């Protein structure tokens, strides 16, 4: 089954078409990276897929549910970890996780079990009693992804998850993301080519509101005749501007 299937998905802002007739398919359990320069349309695409913005026309079906017809049902399938850390700063790490578990309708026993599992998986135990706002950037990112995962989504949107992190924190977070592969569907947006190459099963490149190319990193390189993904991406992005 496809996790995501868009049908001529379009978003128009006054005289600007941010996303134009997007046809995209993401398979269940796949880690799909969405790349694009600023203004390419990837953020708008993610916003439409996560029911934050209504499409002007077209539709997207997430695990059989339509974002235009059944947004409430879609919201029960997804979670978003935004680019910003998006935590409650004065609540402890545990309280943040408890809050999201309660929003997901978890009873206390199930909530505790999920918190235990995630704190072990993300190595959060040493900071569970600390206010989230006092954590370093790397810890806050881990917490941000854990907050998205505690609701046990079927599809997870990760928006620039390693932005601003040092090399060590980034590598640790990569491990966390790799661990999700095959378990849930992950849509990753990033500006780091090496991140997309290292983590994703397939990569989609967007430009000027269109999906320019989809394939594995090797396929994109072969298609553009370039040696690196970065060169392939630049060739595609420049082509879209012409």
């Amino acid at each position: 089954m496809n996790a995501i299937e868009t049908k001529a998905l379009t978003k128009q802002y006054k005289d600007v078409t941010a996303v134009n007739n997007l046809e995209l398919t993401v398979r269940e359990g796949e880690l799909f990276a969405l790349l694009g320069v600023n203004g390419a349309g990837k953020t708008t695409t993610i916003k439409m897929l996560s029911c934050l913005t209504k499409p002007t026309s077209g539709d997207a079906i997430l695990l059989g549910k339509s974002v235009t017809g059944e947004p409430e049902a879609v919201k029960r399938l997804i979670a978003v970890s935004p680019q910003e850390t998006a935590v409650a700063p004065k609540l402890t790490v545990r309280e943040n996780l408890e809050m999201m578990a309660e929003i997901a309708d978890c009873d206390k026993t199930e909530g505790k079990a999920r918190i235990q599992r995630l704190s072990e998986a993300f190595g959060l135990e040493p900071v569970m009693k600390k206010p989230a706002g006092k954590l370093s950037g790397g810890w806050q990112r881990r917490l941000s992804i854990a907050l998205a995962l505690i609701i046990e989504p079927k599809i997870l949107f990760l928006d620039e998850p390693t932005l601003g992190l040092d090399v060590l924190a980034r590598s640790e977070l990569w491990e966390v993301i790799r661990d999700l592969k095959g378990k849930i569907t992950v849509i990753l947006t990033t500006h780091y080519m090496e991140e997309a190459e290292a983590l994703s099963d397939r990569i989609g490149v967007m430009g000027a509101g269109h999906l320019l190319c989809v394939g594995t990193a090797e396929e994109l390189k072969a298609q553009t005749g370039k040696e690196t993904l970065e060169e392939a991406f630049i060739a595609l992005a420049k082509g879209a501007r012409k």
Partner: protein
Amino acid sequence: MKFTVLGKRTWKETLRDPLNLAFGLGFPLVILGLLSAIQANVPVELFRIEQLGPGVTVFGLSFMTLFSALLVSKDRTSALLLRLYTTPLRPADYILGYLLPMIPIALLQTGVCYGFAMLLGLKWTVRILLCLALSIPTAIIFITMGLFFGSLLNDKQVGGVCGALLTNLSAWLSGIWFDVALVGGAFKKLAALLPFWHGVELQRAAYAGNYAAIPSHLWWVLGYAVALTALAVWAFLHQMKKN
């Protein structure tokens, strides 16, 4: 009932912020102590504790605007609200989750102000309980103004508008520090058109047992509370759609 989850969070975030405690509690109590000390040396009718105590409770409530505005605007800029918008929470959950926990916090603040005023000589009367009950619509005015500004402004703008401008404006036009009738003219008319002076007079009338004066002030305060709640809901839904 999901609003209770967000409500718990609002309660904890507000009470754990040391700046909130300093401004919301510390500042009104210092003012109360200072003006009572002045009153002891140079008696002024307006600074009699029976006048000053009920007035300062309303001054304290003006900081609720800053608390709620900062919370909402920071939740917007940190994208916490964006994360929550992708969950099955409904608009009413957000609004009630921000609004309802602020009411007991406001009552707590008003109670502490009256308690401190009693230490400074205000006589206990059961009518203080009426004052507490009547402080709720005034508190709603200040809280919903916070929701309104927090939905439209960023946290830096909120600091200026709600922290400096609004607390000063509401204080000048409230008749706590000076009698608005002494200024007279347009200033007095403006004070009578806005809810702050009515909120203060409502407290003073309730404390004094001047029941006949209560309804005229209460209607103004209730009217503003309803109108500002509607405005805050509109502003919150507007920024929610914009996201």
